[in-house]
C-alpha cells in the first residue's frame, strides 16, 4: 500500500514518487481558465483574481500541483477562473476540506479563497482551527464588509449600526477584526492588502505563497453594488498614503505623503506622531517586527479614523506544519513498529484455534 499519492501515479499503489518534468516557464496566461468571469463589472474581485494569476508562476509549482478551494459567496467563484485544480465547496467549509486535502497530499500547493461571511460567520470554527493547526494552506479572505452574493445583508465585519437590507434600523452586532481572529488562532502568517493596491497585493500574495504554514491574508475589497466605497476613506488614491501604513519587517512604521508620520508607543499605547515636531525623530518610531505577538496584536486593533490602517505582513513565524507532523508520526510509527502487517494485526490479541 502506498501512503504517497501523486497525480502522476495511477494511484494503484506502486508508491513511486512522480518524476517531475522540467518546469516550463509559466506566465499569467497559463493560469487563466476558459471560463467567462461573471463578477459584477467594477467589482474588486477582478483585481484580486488578476494579481493572483500574476503571482502564480513565481512559486515554481507546476500548475497541476496547485489547488484552489473556495466556499460560498462571490469570492467562491474564483477557482473557476484559475486554470489549476479547483474545488468550489460549501459555505464556510473550505478550510476543513483543504485540511484533509493537504494532509492526504503534502505535495500540493493549496489555496483557500473565502469572504468575510464565509470565513468569519458560517465557517468561523473551521477558520480558527485550520489556523491553530498550522495547516499549510494559504487563506485569502476578501473583506467587503457585506454579503454580496445574497444581495446585501450585514456581515460579521459590517460596522455597528450599518443599514443594510437585513438591518434597516442599523446592525446591533459589533464587528470582529479578521486579523485579531487570525492572531488569536495562532496563524503563522497574517497579512492585509487592498484590492486597488495592485503592487502591494502582488507582494503580499507572493509572501503568502512562500510561507509554509497557516497563512491568512485579508484583502480589503470593494463591492460596488451593495457596499460601494467600503474602504475608500483610506484607500482612495488621494488619501491612501496618509491613511494607511505599509508594514515592513525591521523598518519603522512611517507613513504619509511626506513620509513624516509614524506610530510610536507611549507606554503600551500606540499614538500617531509627526517626525520633526515636538522633538520627535525617526528613532522614536516603532520598528515592525513580524515575530513580535504584541506588535501584531496592536496592529490588528488599530484602524481608520483613529489610526492609519496597517497593510502588509503583521506576523510571520515558523512552526511545524500539520501535514508534516502527521507524516512524521507515520514515519516514526513505521520505524518503531515496522510497516503494518495486516495478517499479524488481524491475528493480534487472544486468539484460538478450532480444529
Amino acid at each position: 500500500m502506498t501512503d504517497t499519492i501523486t497525480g502522476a501515479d495511477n494511484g494503484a499503489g506502486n508508491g513511486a514518487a512522480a518524476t517531475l518534468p522540467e518546469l516550463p516557464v509559466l506566465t499569467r496566461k497559463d493560469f487563466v481558465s476558459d471560463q467567462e468571469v461573471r463578477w459584477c463589472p467594477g467589482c474588486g474581485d477582478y483585481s484580486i483574481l488578476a494579481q493572483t494569476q500574476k503571482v502564480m508562476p513565481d512559486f515554481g509549482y507546476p500548475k497541476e500541483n496547485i489547488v484552489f478551494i473556495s466556499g460560498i459567496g462571490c469570492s467562491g467563484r474564483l477557482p473557476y477562473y484559475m486554470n489549476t485544480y479547483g474545488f468550489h465547496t460549501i459555505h464556510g467549509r473550505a478550510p476543513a476540506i483543504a485540511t484533509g486535502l493537504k494532509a492526504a497530499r503534502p505535495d500540493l500547493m493549496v489555496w483557500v479563497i473565502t469572504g468575510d461571511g464565509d470565513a468569519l460567520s458560517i465557517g468561523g470554527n473551521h477558520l480558527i482551527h485550520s489556523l491553530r493547526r498550522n495547516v499549510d494552506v494559504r487563506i485569502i479572505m476578501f473583506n467587503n464588509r457585506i454579503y454580496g452574493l445574497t444581495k446585501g445583508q450585514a456581515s460579521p465585519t459590517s460596522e455597528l449600526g450599518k443599514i443594510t437590507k437585513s438591518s434597516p434600523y442599523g446592525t446591533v452586532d459589533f464587528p470582529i477584526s479578521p486579523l485579531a481572529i487570525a492572531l488569536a488562532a495562532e496563524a503563522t502568517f497574517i497579512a492585509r492588502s487592498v484590492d486597488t493596491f495592485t503592487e502591494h497585493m502582488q507582494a503580499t500574495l507572493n509572501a503568502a505563497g512562500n510561507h509554509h504554514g497557516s497563512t491568512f491574508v485579508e484583502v480589503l475589497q470593494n463591492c460596488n453594488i451593495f457596499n460601494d466605497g467600503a474602504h475608500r476613506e483610506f484607500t482612495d488614491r488621494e488619501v491612501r498614503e496618509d491613511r494607511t501604513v505599509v508594514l515592513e519587517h525591521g523598518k519603522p512604521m512611517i507613513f504619509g505623503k511626506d513620509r513624516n508620520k509614524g506610530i510610536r508607543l507611549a507606554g503600551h499605547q500606540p499614538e500617531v506622531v509627526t517626525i520633526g515636531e515636538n522633538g520627535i525623530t525617526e528613532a522614536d518610531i516603532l520598528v515592525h517586527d513580524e515575530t513580535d505577538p504584541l506588535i501584531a496584536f496592536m496592529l490588528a486593533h488599530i484602524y481608520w479614523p483613529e489610526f492609519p490602517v496597517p497593510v502588509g505582513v503583521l506576523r510571520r513565524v515558523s512552526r511545524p506544519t500539520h501535514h508534516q507532523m502527521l507524516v512524521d508520526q507515520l514515519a516514526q510509527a513505521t520505524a518503531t513498529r515496522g510497516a503494518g502487517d495486516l495478517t499479524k494485526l488481524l491475528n493480534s490479541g487472544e486468539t484460538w484455534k478450532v480444529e
Partner: protein
Amino acid sequence: MSTEAPLKATPTTQKQLERVTIRFAGDSGDGMQLTGTQFTKNAAAFGNDISTFPDYPAEIRAPAGSLPGVSGFQLSFSSTDIHTPGDAPDVLVAMNPAALKANLGELPAGGALIVNEDAFTPGNLQKVGYASNPLGDGSLKQWNLFSVPVSTLNSRALEGLGLTNKQVDLTKNFFALGLMFWLYERDMAATVSWIDDKFKKRPEIAEGNKRALKAGYNFGETTEIFHERYVVPPAKLRPGHYRNITGNEATALGMVAASQLAERPIFYGSYPITPASDILHQLAGYKNFGVKTFQAEDEIAAVGAAIGASYGGAMGLTASSGPGIALKTEAMGLAVMVELPLVVIDVQRAGPSTGMPTKTEQGDLLQVLFGRNGESPLVVLAPATPAECFTFAIEAWRIALKYMTPVVYMSDAFLANGAEPWRIPNLADLSSIAVPNRTAREGFYPYLRDETTLARPWALPGTPGLEHRIGGLEKADVMGNVSYDPDNHHRMTLLRQAKIDGIAADIPPLEVHGPAEGDLLVLGWGSTYGAIRSAVKRLQDRGASIAHAHLRYLNPLPENVGDVLKAYKRVLIPELNLGQLRMLIRARYLIDAIGYNRVRGKPFRIAELEAEAVRVLATLGVTIA
C-alpha cells in the same frame, strides 16, 4: 485465605449445560465491563460460542450506589451456535442494591442471584428506595439467592499488601469473577497473565487483583453455599483461527484491510461521539498502516476533511452517530454532487437529539437515505453482526471506489459494543478493490461517465493536463462546467439516481433462511439479525412455515427483494424504530408489511419476536404447537 462461611462437608456435583447467560451488574465504577470482558475472553478461548451485550450509562461516574449509575454486562456462552446475548440472564451478579433493583426484573424465577451483601447497607438501600433489606425480608424467595460478603472476604484476602481501602475496594470485581470462574469450572491462567500485563508498572495492584480473583475462586471451592458446578462444553465452530471481536473493532480492522485491498491510504476525519469514538481510538493506533487520523473541530470538519482527502486520492472516511450525521448532512450532499468516494459510518444510538447516547436504536435509516436537500441518492449498507462489520467495511469501499459515490455504513450501539467469536479471514481470500485514477488527457471531461458503472473519472490534482474544477453547483453533463440549464439538471439528477440504482446488479441477492415460500417472512436489517434468526429458528423447529431474510443493502435494495416478499402470505418487519424499513418496503413493493417496533434502547429479545410471529401466524389461522 480464611472465610467465615461454612466449609464443605459434601463434595460439589457437576452438571452439564448447553448455554448459560450471566449478567454482571454494579456501579459504573465497579469494573463490571472489565469483569464481563474477562469472562467473555475466557469462554471464547475455551471454545464456547459467545455473544455479549454491554449496557452502561452515559454518565462516566454517576453518584455511587444510584440507579442511573448501574452498569451491566451480559454475556451468553454456549456449546451450540448462538446469535444473541440471551433474552434474560440465568445468573445475575449484583454488586449493590442499585444493581439488584435495576436488573432483578429481568431475572426469571429460579434464576441464580449472587449478591455482595456487604454493599446492602442502610445508606445504599435507602438511596434506591428499599424500605427493608431484600436479602433478609423474604422478598427474593422466588430466586436462588447466594448472599456473599464479597467486600469483607476480599479485604481480608488482601490484608498485608499495604493497599488503601479504596484500592482494595476496586479489586472486588475480580473476587466476583473468580467465583464465577469456579462455578463454571474455568481456568484462570489467561486472566492472571492479563492482570500481570495490565498492571506491570504497579505490581502491588497486580497482586491485589490476583489475590481477589483467587479468593473468589477459593470461596466457591471451600464453602458450603454452592453445591453444584456447571460445565458448558465447547461449541462446534467452523475450523479456523478465532478471536473475540466487537462491531467497532471489526469495523476499524475492516477499514485497514480495505485500504490494503484498494492500495490507498485511509484518511479518517472524526469528532468524538458515543458510541463511535472507539473507531477513532483504534484507527489512531494504525499509523504504521499509513492511516492518517484527524480529530476535527466538529462533525462538519470531520466529513469535510475526509472529502478533501478523497479529492486528493486517499480513502476519505468519517464516522459518527445520529446527531453527528445530522451535522454532516450538507457535506454528504456535496459528496453526492461532486461524485467522490467517501464512507460515512453511522453508529446509531437512541434519538432524537442527544437521546440516549449509550443505548441502541435503528432510528437513522430514513435520515441517511433522505436527510439531504434535493434528490441526493447514495449507497446505504448495514452489517448484521459484529463479524460482518469487517466484510462490510471492505464492501463499502469496493462500492465507493468503483462507483465514485458516498456510502453510508450503518452500525448501532449494540453492534458496536457487542462481541462474538470471529473467524479470522485469510487475506489471500480477499479480492482487490483497487481502481485506477484517470491520467490520460485524450478525451478527458470531469463528468464523462463510465458506460457500465456511470462513474465519473477520478482525476487527481497533480495530474498534468487534467486541471478542472468541481463543486456543489450543478454541472453540465460530461463537460462539468457550471450549468443552470433546466434539461441538464433533470438529466444529471436522473444520472445520479441511475448510477446508484445500477449498483443493484453488482450486489448479492437477498438470501432466505427457511422455505422459499410459505406463511410468514420475517424481514430485518442491521443488529436485529441474531434475535430474528433465533426466533425464526425456534418457530421452524415448532413446525411453522416461516423464513427469515436480512437486508445488508438498504440502498439500492437487492434486485430479488420484491420476488422474495411476494412468496409469503405475510411479511413481518421488526425494527428498533417506528417502522422505517417497513415504510420503504410498503412504498416500493406495495406489500402490506406488518411492523413490530420497539424503541427501548435495548436489542430485541428472542421471545418477544417469537411471540409476535405466532400472533401474526394466528391471523392466517395457523396455530403453532
